[in-house]
């Protein structure tokens, strides 16, 4: 009975969606804002990657809100997990020599790759969010692979996260001071397609990379310890 009701409900929604989407064929985007960003983006922000200039510069305030959502999710997660019970000492088997050595060999390379992705965010595909996720996957590898290695201090994740969040907000406030509005691109734009170009965009994206990486690594760390 429940299945039947759900199926009927989904069919009704599907019919509504079908009749509305029939008017928008695939591959014919008509948004005006796209033309504006593509025509003026490289002149106004200096970043070769228009997606990055949309994320950090045109919609930087929105990105600040999304980073805040991530922060709230991680805070809520630790508040719920550390509510009553102290952290349990689980029985862990020491990882074998091959796994341990492999993890310790791969870990710095993964960190380097993540840093490359977010430093070059304004030139190539990628950026702070993706690079941060790659860095967090490196921490996940050490947490799953190197059971014997207790080298990660939880407080350092929180400190990194707070400092990088502060950098984002302070850069935005400096824009308010110099240019009159929040996240104003007050540094020189430079020549496009060079590493040191696009003003505040690389600074903000590196801050976002550190913040996302330490936040997701902290989430994984909480779940591994207390889950």
């Amino acid at each position: 009975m429940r299945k039947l009701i759900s199926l009927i409900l989904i069919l009704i929604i599907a019919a509504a969606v079908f009749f509305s989407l029939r008017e928008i064929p695939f591959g014919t985007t008509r948004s005006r804002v796209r033309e504006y960003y593509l025509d003026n983006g490289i002149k106004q922000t200096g970043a070769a990657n228009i997606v990055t200039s949309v994320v950090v510069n045109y919609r930087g305030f929105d990105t600040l809100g999304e980073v805040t959502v991530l922060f709230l999710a991680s805070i809520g997660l630790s508040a719920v997990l550390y509510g009553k019970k102290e952290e349990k000492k689980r029985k862990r088997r020491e990882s074998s020599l091959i796994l341990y050595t492999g993890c310790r060999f791969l870990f710095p390379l993964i960190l380097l790759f993540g840093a490359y992705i977010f430093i070059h965010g304004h030139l190539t595909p990628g950026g702070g969010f993706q690079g941060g996720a790659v860095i967090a996957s490196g921490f996940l590898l050490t947490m799953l692979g190197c059971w014997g290695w207790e080298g990660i201090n939880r407080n350092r994740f929180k400190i990194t996260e707070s400092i990088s969040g502060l950098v984002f907000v302070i850069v935005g406030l400096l824009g308010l001071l110099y240019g009159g509005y929040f996240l104003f691109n007050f540094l020189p734009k430079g020549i496009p397609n060079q590493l040191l170009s696009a003003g505040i965009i690389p600074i903000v994206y590196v801050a976002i990379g550190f913040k996302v990486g330490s936040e997701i690594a902290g989430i994984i760390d909480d779940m591994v310890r207390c889950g």
Partner: protein
Amino acid sequence: MEFLENYLYYIASFGLIFIGLYIMLVKKNLIKIIIGLSIIDTGVNILLISIGYLKEGTVPIFSRDNLLPSRMVDPVPQALVLTAIVIGVAILALALTLTIVLYRHYGTLNVGKIRNLKW
């Protein structure tokens, strides 16, 4: 054939969304409901990206000189989706954490048995 060419991405994304919705409505295990939530998330991301697509368009990156702005895909949905993916991961982690706490408290993952919920 032309129908498939025009609507394949919409069919795929809404297929994923409806599969996830069906899972969330029908299944009783909390872990399965969270899996359904994650599938809906993926479907919505594919939908946003495919709405911004332009036929035979290129990536919106001016890495060479001879790239035309009129042939590039829409950068706005891509910017929204790249943040939405990370937010989705955080929401998934929060939901799983709440599930852990519910399991500690009630000793079951069945939604029907928790507080005698009837649906």
